[in-house]
């Protein structure tokens, strides 16, 4: 991706002993700012804990919620262990089917995070390619692509996602749909939000392509593909990093909302959204923990990502700092 940096590093290595990667990180601006911002440090720590716990769910979780042989219906709706009716065995209580909430939440968070990251990777891929082409080519291609982006943006993601998933669910049937749900969610959220990336990238490309190094690359006879991806793209990365955090938070929220509507992950393989959804009917009978605890985890996850995004925006681009 960043050839030039690699070459730089090689040159440095010849002159003096190149600083190790860790040293380079420690000397960087970002690290300096990071160690002086308590909010950012706490957010990063919470995010790391949530992320690791979710990714290592199979190792940490006391039971496997997908394995029905572990589940005893007699254990259903047990309150969290700290309340009076709670039991030692189930730290966060159990849901209506008798699954351990702690394990289910870990596995659910894993699915939510996976969908969030994969969907944003897809968005970034489509958006970067289209944005680079639109910005670099300019003219009619640019006009057309940005018009398409406008139209796509004016239909909100949720609207598009709800309609598309609803139609697919209705035509596939619930059975088949629940097997494909994860990939459908990634596809839909990924495709619906590409204009965010395309616009950001296009704006940076417009500024970058007037600079001398692009001119130089052109004179050296490099093709447009190479100039776009090897020369311009590495210089447009910081805004991408900033919107990526916001986009991941949004994607996780969208996934939860869609699952809550019953258009996302099935109850047998729940994400945080479908956990909240399946607990919602029991809130009236007093079993608040089935809904509230996964809800709190979801909010915490999204909140720390948003806070990190805010911090990153301020550090990388002090000019657009607006608060």
């Amino acid at each position, binding site marked *: 991706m960043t050839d030039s940096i690699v070459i730089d590093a090689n040159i440095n290595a010849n002159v003096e002993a190149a600083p190790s990667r860790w040293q380079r990180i420690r000397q960087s601006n970002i690290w300096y700012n990071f160690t002086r911002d308590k909010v950012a440090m706490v957010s990063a720590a919470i995010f790391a804990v949530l992320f690791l716990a979710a990714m290592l769910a199979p190792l940490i979780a006391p039971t496997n919620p997908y394995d029905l042989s572990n589940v005893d219906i007699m254990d259903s709706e047990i309150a969290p262990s700290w309340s009076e009716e709670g039991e030692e065995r189930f730290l966060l209580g159990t849901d209506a089917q008798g699954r351990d909430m702690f394990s289910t939440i870990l596995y659910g968070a894993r699915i939510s995070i996976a969908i969030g990251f994969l969907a944003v990777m897809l968005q970034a891929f489509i958006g970067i390619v289209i944005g680079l082409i639109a910005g670099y080519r300019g003219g009619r291609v640019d006009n057309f692509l940005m018009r398409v982006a406008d139209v796509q943006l004016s239909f909100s993601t*949720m609207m598009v996602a709800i309609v598309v998933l609803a139609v697919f669910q209705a035509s596939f049937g619930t059975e088949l749909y629940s097997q494909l749900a994860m990939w459908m969610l990634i596809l839909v959220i990924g495709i619906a939000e590409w204009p965010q990336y395309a616009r950001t990238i296009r704006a940076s490309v417009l500024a970058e392509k007037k600079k001398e190094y692009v001119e130089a690359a052109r004179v050296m006879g490099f093709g447009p593909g190479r100039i776009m991806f090897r020369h311009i793209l590495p210089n447009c990365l910081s805004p991408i990093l900033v919107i990526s955090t916001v986009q991941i938070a949004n994607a996780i929220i969208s996934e939860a*909302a869609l699952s809550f509507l019953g258009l996302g992950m099935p109850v047998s393989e729940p994400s945080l959204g479908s956990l909240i959804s399946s607990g919602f009917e029991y809130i009236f009978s007093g079993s608040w923990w089935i809904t509230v605890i996964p*809800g709190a985890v979801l909010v915490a996850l999204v909140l720390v990502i948003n806070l990190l995004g805010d911090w990153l925006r301020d550090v990388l681009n002090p000019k657009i700092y607006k608060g």
Partner: protein
Amino acid sequence: MLLFLFRRLMQGLVVMFVISLISFSIQDNLGDPLREMVGQAVSEAERQQLRDELGLNDSFLTQYGRFITKAMQGDLGTSYFFKEPALDVILGKMPATLELVFAATLIIIFTSIPAGVYCAIKPNTLLTKAILGISILGISVPVFLTAIFSIYLFSIELGWLPSYGRGDELVPLLGGWETGFLTADGLKHLILPAVSLASIMLPLFIRLIRSEMVETLSTEYVKFAKAKGLKKARVYFLHALKNTMLPVITVGGVQIGTMVAYTILTETVFQWPGMGFLFLEAVNRVDTPLIVAYLIVVGGVFVVVNTLVDLIYGLINPTVKLAGGNA
């Protein structure tokens, strides 16, 4: 101005055309109309004949043409479930959704403007920090969770407000529009859904108004107005706020689509008898005509509102080049 209007209308028409194409292909591919009409006992030959008579074997274009012609006349098919024209079913539910959106918009306007302006004027007070802190929390809480938490707190724990529906005391207005605005019971039912719906937009608008206001306050003309000795309130709310509202209106226009989408979520949680709830039920019942009618009605509302917002923007901001070529 006319050219601009024309371009906007053309864009709206293109969008409507795309929506109609999508709706039609949904109708074409979802379910078999014959199965809805006749039972299992009809022989294959009879089915074929029926297909010919109904025009189901015609080419895609012919069928699409027929669909458009009918749609123009307001005929979007008959709902399988309600056995009534789909358009009538949708329009019957529209007042509930409109009232919800209207109430939420009122809440947004009367909360975000004072809050945003306050945060800009007094950047270092505790209240400002609290407002900004809550607003980032607000962005991170999905609307259905706001709804669920508020039901849990205000309906179940405290028992102050009803948790679902619109209540029984609706007052009929003209043309079958029943409003919940005129009775205490109706308003009580409206509070939680409207606040939940407003809660997704509020943080966004507070932050936007604040940042724009901060920028405006540092401009020369505001300093000049202050130096002239004008009352502070007059400078803030008359001089500065006016210029703050431009980007707010643009963002507001873009957010309308999001708002419509989130009515589906809010209405589902509160079982609010509006279009969004109806749409989700229609999806679960595979009630194709109703799904199509919803798409076309919502798409239409959407295009009209977007065009209006653009026009208003053009009218109040003289620097926008309405007939602009390559932007």
